[in-house]
């Protein structure tokens, strides 16, 4: 039902491997309880340093996959293998060391941060949480380390002590990335991180993501509804529809040779927009 990625390396195991992931939700109220399969038997893998994008319409289950991978939710069945270790059903104590290796960045980072924090407090928060869980003493981020992080994501280090209320949407998104990088993760799950941003801000953040990936060898799981944007950033694209992974393949395969109806539908709207654009740009002189 789906094509596997063209080059799956067997020498270095993939950083993330998902097998048969399933999650159901019970919805509806009062007397009309309905069980909905949000995710139904999804499998994919991401080699180290690469980007896999999950695209689909709202309600297709992609955010649920993201939440299961980061163990914000516990999957009902299936395996989630990080470097060979299955984290799908281990308890929180066993999970602790993995939390630093997988970080998640959401859409609209502005609401994901405490508005009374300064930039420094936002960035060092994960460290505080992690050290608390291990040794019990406060270990704040040194100012130098914070400066480096801020510079890496393109923020002026002078703003370290500024309250995040004064940051624009794009700046907050950068800060969210900085916060995600504090613990030196290996896998970043980006849940609609680029949605809802202005075009130029989107381009800036997208470039930042590519840059960080090249510099640190990060692996990305990118969740989005925007196939056009994602085809610029991903090595592999998986298409989700109604909880199932209906097609998966390299970016080129998916964008030039889609097989499943859901993929074709997504691609169709991208192509219409693209053809409108190219028509208006390359028409002969009026």
């Amino acid at each position, binding site marked *: 039902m789906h094509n596997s990625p063209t080059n799956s390396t067997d020498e270095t195991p993939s950083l993330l491997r998902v097998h048969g992931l399933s999650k159901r939700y019970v919805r509806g109220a009062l007397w009309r309880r309905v069980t909905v399969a949000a995710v139904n038997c999804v499998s994919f893998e991401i080699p180290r340093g690469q980007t896999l994008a999950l695209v689909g319409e709202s309600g297709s289950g992609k955010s649920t996959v993201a939440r299961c991978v980061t163990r914000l939710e516990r999957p009902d069945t299936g395996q989630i293998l990080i470097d060979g270790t299955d984290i799908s059903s281990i308890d929180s104590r066993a999970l602790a060391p993995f939390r630093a290796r997988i970080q998640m960045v959401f859409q609209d980072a502005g609401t994901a941060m405490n508005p009374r924090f300064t930039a420094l407090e936002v960035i060092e928060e994960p460290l505080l949480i992690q050290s608390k869980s291990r040794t019990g003493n406060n270990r704040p981020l040194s100012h130098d380390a914070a400066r480096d992080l801020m510079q890496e994501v393109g923020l002026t280090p002078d703003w370290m002590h500024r309250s995040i209320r004064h940051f*624009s949407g794009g700046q907050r998104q950068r800060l969210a990335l900085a916060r995600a990088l504090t613990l030196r993760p290996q896998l970043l799950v980006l849940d609609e991180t680029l949605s809802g941003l*202005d075009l130029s801000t989107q381009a800036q953040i997208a470039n930042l993501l590519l840059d960080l990936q090249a510099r640190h060898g990060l692996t990305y799981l990118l969740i989005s*509804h925007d196939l056009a944007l994602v085809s610029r950033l991903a090595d592999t694209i998986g298409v989700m529809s109604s909880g199932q992974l209906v097609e998966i393949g390299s970016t080129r395969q998916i964008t030039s040779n889609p097989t499943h109806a859901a993929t074709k539908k997504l691609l169709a709207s991208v192509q219409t927009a693209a053809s409108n654009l190219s028509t208006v740009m390359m028409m002969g002189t009026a």
Partner: protein
Amino acid sequence: MANFVQIRDLKVTYAPETGAPVRALEGVSLEIARGEIVGILGESGCGKSTLASALLRLLPPHATCEAGTISIDGRDLMQLSERDLRAIRGKEVSMIPQDPALSLNPVMTAGSQISEVLRAHLPLTAKQRRERVMELLREVGFDSPEEIYAAYPHQLSGGQRQRIAIAQAISCVPALLIADEPTSKLDASLQTEIVALLSRIRQQHGTAILVISHDPSLFAGFADRIAVMYAGRIVEVGSTAAIFRKSLHPYTQALVSIAASTLVSATDTKAPLPAIAGESPDPTCVPLGCRFEPRCAERMEACSIRYPAEFIPEPARLVSCFKYGE
């Protein structure tokens, strides 16, 4: 010949309770002809939503319209009473709100919300209203209008809710429709549908449409003319073809090249996208010169000293940039 909608030199300032006043619009002039689709291209903070609200004279209480005129069909909206304005809103000028998740009343059915707009402006009986609502629901693309009429907003998807909002806006066949970021909060795949619907509306009813978006690709094949806004001013105006093929202002060129980068074939995946350096301007501190200057790759001496005047290289074309004149 005076145009259908004429905005002249509009200046709007927000005076929030805490903090510095924000100059949202600094002398914006725009004209819209009957049946024309005009696009406003600009990013957050450029004042586009303020412009839309100003057209309806529905600015929040802490905003002041310091100067300028807005005339629709020859009537100056600044002179009208609240009562007259209410007669215009929804009937001659209608706005499609931005966020479909929030713009519908959660405890009223979709059909009754459309009916409310009809009730405010047209002397129809309840039965006639219901029929008209069914008609409208079919027009915006619903196959089973009866089901949708009785549905509550939380039972509908984002795209469906947006179409209900559109049905509300066109219910009294307005002469001007304002669509503020009609597809930004929806899945990317719905963009084509919504754009097609709006085009159809213009064709069938001759409605003029003011579309606002930060994404140039929305306007391709849809808008007749585009006005580009930056930091409270219009920096460039031209036909859609002109803006895409030969944009003049550096900001416009940058935006168009970002949008065009989606046309690049997949051979170059993971190549950096063209981007504009720097951050969007701080609306509370207004420098003397061109607002885009800090981020402009082609800036010159004059750019930070004073604001460039509007230069009209050819009819129906306008740009404010020192590259082209004083």
